[in-house]
C-alpha cells in the first residue's frame, strides 16, 4: 500500500531537489517522445542542452542566452513577489507591451535628437507604462474586490489592441512605405538599449541582475518582504501582525508591472528594435513558468530563466539540425512545468509504504 503522508514541515532537501529531478524527468520523458518521433533521443537532448553552451557555435549562442533570458528573469522576479503573497498577476504580457509602448513613444518623440537624457527618460516611461497597466487590476481589487487574475489577463488583449493601433497609426515609421511598425531603434544610437550587441549585453540584462539582488534583499532583510512572506504563508497571522492587505496588493502588482514594463522597454529598444504588431512573443506568460520553476526564489528564478532560455535556443537548433517539429519542442517545455508541479508534492508529502498506523 502506497500512501501520501503530509510532512509536518515542508522538506528543505526536497524543495531544492525537485527542480533538478523535474529537469531529469523531462529529459527522460522528452527523450522517449523524440525516440517515438524516430529521432535519436540522446542526440536531441544533447543538442538542446549542450549545443548552445559548449557546441561549435557557442560563441554566438551564449550571448543569445542573455538576450532570451533577461526579460524572463526581470518579469519573473516581479511576479514572484506577488505570487509569494497570493497575489496573482497573470497579465505581465500586457504590462510588458504597455511599458514598451510608453518608453518607445518617448524615444520616437525625441527622434532624431542625440542627448544623454533620451534613454533614461525612456526607461522611466517604460517602468511607468507597466506600472500604470498593473495599477488597473490593483485598484479594482482593492476598491471593488475584483479578481486580479481575470482583470490582469483580460488587459493583455486590450494592450495587444493598443500595440496594433500604435504600429499602424501613431508610431508608424513615416519612411516605412506604408508598412506597419515604427522606426528601428538600432539605427538611433541615443535610444538603444544595447551596450554590446555581440556580447548579448543590453541594459535589460543589467536590470535583471539588479532586480535579482533587489528582490533577495527585500525578501530577506526588509519589512515589506517579511509581510509578503507572512501573507502568503499565514494570512491570519499577517492580519494580526498589522499587514495592510490593500497596500501589499498595490505594492506587489505595481512592482511586477513596473518590472514587466521595463523588460518591454529594453526589448523594444534593443533586441526587437521596433514597435510592431507582433512585438510580444509571450515572455509575460513564460515568466510565470520561470517564477515557479525557480521556486519563487530570486536566485532560483535567475537559474530557471537561464534554463528556459536554453530550451528555447537549443530547441530551435534541434529543429533545424534534427528536423524535430516545433510542437515536440513545445511539449518538451511543457513537461518541465508539469514534472515540477508533480514532484513538488514530495516537498509537502512523503510517500510511505505499508498500512496506515493507527493513532
Amino acid at each position, binding site marked *: 500500500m502506497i500512501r501520501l503522508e503530509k510532512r509536518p514541515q515542508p522538506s528543505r532537501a526536497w524543495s531544492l531537489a525537485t527542480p533538478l529531478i523535474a529537469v531529469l524527468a523531462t529529459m527522460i520523458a522528452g527523450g522517449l517522445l523524440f525516440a517515438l518521433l524516430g529521432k535519436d533521443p540522446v542526440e536531441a537532448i544533447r543538442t538542446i542542452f549542450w549545443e548552445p553552451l559548449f557546441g561549435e557555435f557557442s560563441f554566438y549562442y551564449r550571448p543569445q542566452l542573455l538576450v532570451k533570458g533577461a526579460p524572463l528573469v526581470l518579469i519573473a522576479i516581479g511576479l514572484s513577489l506577488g505570487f509569494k503573497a497570493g497575489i496573482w498577476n497573470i497579465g505581465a504580457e500586457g504590462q510588458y507591451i504597455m511599458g514598451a509602448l510608453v518608453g518607445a513613444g518617448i524615444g520616437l518623440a525625441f527622434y532624431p535628437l542625440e542627448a544623454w537624457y533620451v534613454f533614461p527618460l525612456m526607461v522611466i516611461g517604460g517602468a511607468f507604462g507597466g506600472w500604470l497597466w498593473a495599477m488597473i487590476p490593483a485598484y479594482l481589487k482593492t476598491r471593488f474586490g475584483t479578481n486580479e487574475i481575470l482583470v490582469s489577463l483580460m488587459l493583455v488583449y486590450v494592450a495587444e489592441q493598443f500595440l496594433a493601433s500604435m504600429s*499602424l497609426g501613431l508610431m508608424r515609421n513615416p519612411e516605412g512605405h506604408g*508598412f506597419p511598425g515604427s522606426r528601428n531603434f*538600432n539605427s538611433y544610437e541615443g535610444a538603444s538599449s544595447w551596450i554590446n550587441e555581440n556580447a548579448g549585453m543590453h541594459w535589460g540584462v543589467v536590470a535583471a541582475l539588479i532586480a535579482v539582488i533587489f528582490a533577495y534583499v527585500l525578501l530577506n532583510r526588509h519589512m515589506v518582504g517579511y509581510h509578503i512572506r507572512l501573507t502568503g504563508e499565514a494570512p491570519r497571522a499577517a492580519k494580526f501582525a498589522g499587514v495592510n492587505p490593500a497596500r501589499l496588493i498595490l505594492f506587489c502588482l505595481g512592482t511586477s508591472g513596473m518590472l514587466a514594463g521595463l523588460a518591454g522597454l529594453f526589448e523594444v529598444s534593443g*533586441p526587437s528594435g521596433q514597435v*510592431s*504588431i507582433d512585438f510580444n512573443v509571450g515572455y509575460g506568460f513564460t515568466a510565470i513558468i520561470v517564477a515557479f520553476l525557480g521556486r519563487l526564489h530570486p536566485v532560483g528564478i535567475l537559474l530557471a530563466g537561464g534554463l528556459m532560455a536554453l530550451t528555447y535556443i537549443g530547441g530551435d537548433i534541434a529543429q533545424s539540425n534534427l528536423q524535430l517539429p*516545433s510542437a515536440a519542442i513545445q511539449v518538451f517545455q511543457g513537461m518541465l512545468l508539469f514534472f515540477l508541479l508533480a514532484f513538488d508534492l514530495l516537498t509537502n508529502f512523503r510517500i510511505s509504504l505499508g498500512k496506515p498506523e493507527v493513532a
Partner: protein
Amino acid sequence: MKLTNLMTSAAMAFGLATAALADDPTKVGFVYVGPVGDGGWTYEHDQGRKAVVAEFGDKVETVYVENVAEGPDAERVITQMALQGADLIFTTSFGYMDPTINVAAKFPNVRFEHATGYKQADNVATYSARFYEGRAVQGTIAGNMTKSNIVGYIGSYPIPEVIRGINSAYIHAKKVNPDVEFKIVWAFTWFDPAKEADAAKVLIEQGADVILQHTDSTAPQAAAQAAGNVITFGQASDMAEYGPLPRVSSIIDDWAPYYIARTQAVMDGTWASGNTWDGIGAGMVGIGEISDSVPADVKEAALAMKAALADGSYHAFTGPINKQDGSAWLAEGEVADDGTLAGMSFYVEGIEGDIPQ
C-alpha cells in the same frame, strides 16, 4: 621558384575548394512563421522546399525551422542557419525583413531571399507573388455567386499586400454585380484558427454568403460549412478538402519553380540579388479548380479573366478607378504602376469603412 610554389599551392587550394563545392550538397534553409501543417501559407512554402529536394536529390540539403516569431527569435534562427553552413536561406514572412537584412550584413557569402519585403542588399533578394491577380478571378466569381450581395472579407493585417487584395476583389466583384457590398473584418493575425473562425461567423451573421480570407487556416472554411449556403475560397493553399462546397476555388501560392530556380542559380554561381514579383502568367499564383457548384457561365468568365491576366492582355488595376474619397487615381485605360501597388494604403471608391490606423 617562390612564385611557382605560391602558384602551385594556390592552384591546389583552388582545386580543393572546387572539389569541396562539388562534393558538398548545397545547403538551403527555410524559416517559417507558422507550422508546416497550417494548410496554407507555410504549408505551401514547405511544398516548395520539398520540390527543391525532389529536383536536386543528393545535391541539396534542406533544413527548416517552423513557428519562428518575428523579431529577435527570427534573427537568431537565421544566424544559426548561416553559421551551420547554409548557402541560401529563404525567410518566408514579411516580419523577417529587418532580421534578414541584419544577418545578411554579417554573412556576405550566404545568399538570402526574403518573401514579401522591400529591403534588398547585395546578398538579399526579395520575392513575392501578385496575389491580387488571383483576387481578380476570385472577385469575378464572388460577385456572380452572392445572393445577399454581401461579401465578407477576413483581413489579416492592414498592410499594402492585403489592401491590394481587397481592392482587386472588390473592383472585379463590382464589375459583374453593381450592388455588391464588402464587409471587412481585421483579425490581426496570419494564423489563428479560433480568431479566424470568429471573424467568419460574425461576417455570416451580418448576411455575408461569400467569405474571402487573407488568413492562412482552414477555420473559415469550416465555419462556412457549418453555416451552409456560404461559399469560400482556399487561401494560399488549395484547401480542396472543403470542396465542392463551401470551397468553390482557391488562390494557390506555388513557390516551387522559384525555389528550384534560385537554388540552381546558387549551384551555378549565377545567383544575383533582385526583386521578383510574379503572377498567374509565371505560375507563381495558381487558381485552384473551380468546382461544379459554380454555374458554367460564371466559371467561363472566371477562366477568361485568368487567361487575360496570364497573357498580360489585362491588368487587374485598369482605370477608370477612383480612390475611396472620390479623388481620381487611374484614368480611363490607365494601368497602375508597381510602385503604387507595392505601397498601396488606400481603398478604392465604393468600399465602406476605414483602414485601421
